C-alpha cells in the first residue's frame, strides 16, 4: 500500500469575482503520476498552486497524513506541510529566482536552503542543463528557455520526491525538452540516485501529457472530477472532451 502524501477536501479559490476553483477533493499517494487536464481557464494552474502551497485556499482543507490541517488562526508551516514542502518542487510559469543574482548563486542559495551546498553538484546541474557558460550572469538577462532550464537545474539539485509541473516545456528548446522528457519518463535520474515518487503535470500538449502521466485528473469549470485511469479515458475520448 503506497503512502498518502496529501489529502484535500472541498478546496475553493476565488480571485475577485472569478471563482477559479469551486470544488476540489482528492488525495495524492506515492507513485501517483498524474496528468491534469482542462480547457483554458478551467482552474488547472490554480489547483496546482493550491496543492503546492503557493495559494492558500479560501475554503476547504489540505492535510498531510499523520499531521494536522494546514488552516488555522495564524497560517504557517506546520510539521506535515514542512516535511512535504522539503521534499517537493514546483516548476511553474514564474521562475521564482532572484533576478539580480547569477545562475550559480541562485542555485547555491536554493541548495543551501535544503542542505549544505556542494559546488561540484551545482556545476554539474549547470552543465547538465547547458547553462555552464552563463553561470555567472544575472538571471534578468536570461531568456524564457534559459530560466526553464535553470528551474530544471534547481530541481535536479533538490532531488524532490514529488514535483508539480505547470507547463514545464514552455520556452524550452529541443535539448531542454529532451532532458526534461527523459527525467519525467525515467521518473528521475538514476545516476544521481534521484527518484521522483510522484508528480502532477499540466501541459497543453495532450499527447505528451497522456504519455507521461498514468492517472488522469480532469477539471471542468473549477470542479475537479473523479480521477480516471487511461482505461477509463482513451486518448481519443480525451481529445474530444478537450476539443
Amino acid at each position, binding site marked *: 500500500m503506497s503512502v498518502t502524501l496529501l489529502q484535500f477536501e472541498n478546496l475553493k479559490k476565488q480571485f475577485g469575482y472569478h471563482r477559479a476553483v469551486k470544488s476540489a477533493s482528492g488525495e495524492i499517494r506515492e507513485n501517483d503520476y498524474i496528468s491534469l487536464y482542462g480547457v483554458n481557464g478551467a482552474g488547472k494552474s490554480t489547483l496546482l498552486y493550491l496543492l503546492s502551497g*503557493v495559494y492558500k485556499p479560501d475554503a476547504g482543507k489540505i492535510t498531510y497524513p499523520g499531521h494536522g490541517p494546514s488552516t488555522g488562526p*495564524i497560517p504557517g508551516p506546520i510539521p506535515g506541510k*514542512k516535511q512535504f514542502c*522539503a521534499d517537493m518542487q*514546483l516548476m511553474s510559469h*514564474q521562475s521564482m*529566482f532572484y533576478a539580480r*543574482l547569477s545562475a550559480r548563486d541562485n542555485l547555491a542559495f*536554493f541548495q543551501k*536552503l535544503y542542505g549544505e551546498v556542494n559546488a561540484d553538484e551545482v556545476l554539474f546541474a549547470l552543465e547538465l542543463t547547458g547553462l555552464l557558460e552563463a553561470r555567472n550572469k544575472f538571471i534578468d538577462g536570461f531568456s524564457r528557455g534559459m530560466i526553464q532550464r535553470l528551474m530544471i537545474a534547481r530541481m535536479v539539485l533538490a532531488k524532490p520526491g514529488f514535483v508539480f509541473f505547470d507547463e514545464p516545456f514552455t520556452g524550452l528548446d529541443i535539448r531542454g525538452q529532451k532532458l526534461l522528457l527523459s527525467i519525467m519518463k525515467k521518473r528521475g535520474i538514476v545516476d544521481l540516485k534521484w527518484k521522483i515518487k510522484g508528480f502532477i503535470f499540466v501541459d497543453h500538449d495532450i499527447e505528451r501529457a497522456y504519455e507521461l502521466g498514468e492517472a488522469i485528473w480532469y477539471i471542468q469549470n473549477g470542479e475537479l472530477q473523479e480521477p480516471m485511469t487511461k482505461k477509463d479515458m482513451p486518448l481519443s475520448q480525451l481529445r474530444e472532451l478537450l476539443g
Partner: protein
Amino acid sequence: MRIFRTLLAKELRLYFFGTSFYMVSSILSIGLFLLFRFTYPSEQINMEIAVSVLWAVHTISSLFSLIASQEWEWEANALRAVKLSGVEGYVVFLTKSLASIISMFLLWILEFLVWMVLYGGDLFKPGVGGYAQDLTAPLVVMAAQVLVAGLLASIGIAFIGQVTSVLALHSRFRHVLMFIVFFPISIPLVIAASSYTRLAVALKGWSAGLNFLSLEAAFCLFFSAAGVILYDYLWEE
C-alpha cells in the same frame, strides 16, 4: 542557523552587489543635501533645519532600501520559492530586517559624514548654530550619540518597513502603498530620532533626551514582535 545565514547572505549580496541601491541612494542623498545647503545660505543655517534635513534625507533613502528589498522578492516571486522550501516566516522577517538595518545604518554613517562636511562648519562656529555656547560634551560623545540615534532608527525603520512591505507586497499598487502606510507609522520614530540628534549635535551630552531614545527603543521592540508574530499571516493574506 544555516538557513538564517543563507538568507542573510543573500540579502546582503543583493544590497551590495546585485543592485545599484547604494549608488542611487548616495547620489539622491548628496543631491538633496546640496539642494538644501544652497537654499539656506550659511548665515541662515540653524540646528533645527540642518538636523531635519539630515533625517528627511535618511528617511527617504531608507524607504528606497525597503522598496529595493521588496522588489527583488516580487520580481519573479522568489520569496515564494523560499517559503515553499519550508522556511518559517519569522526567519525571513528577521533576516530581511537585519540586512535592511545593516544597509540603512551604513547609509546613515555615509549621510552623516556628508552632512557634517556640508553643514558642520557653520553649525559649530560659536553662536551660529545657536547651541555652541554651552558645550557640555566633547565631539566624540556627540558622534557616538548620533550613531546610537541612527542605529536605533535604522532598526525601527527596518522592522516597520518589513511589516508594511509584506502588507503591500501582494498589492498592484505596492510602491504607493508603501509610502502611504510606512510614513504615518514611522513619523513618531523619525521625530524622536531627529530630536535626539538635535540634542546630540548641540553637545548636550548623553543624559539629555533619553526619553527620545526610549521611544525609539519602544518602536523597535513593538515592531520586531509584531513582525515575528504576524509575518506569515500577513504574507498569506
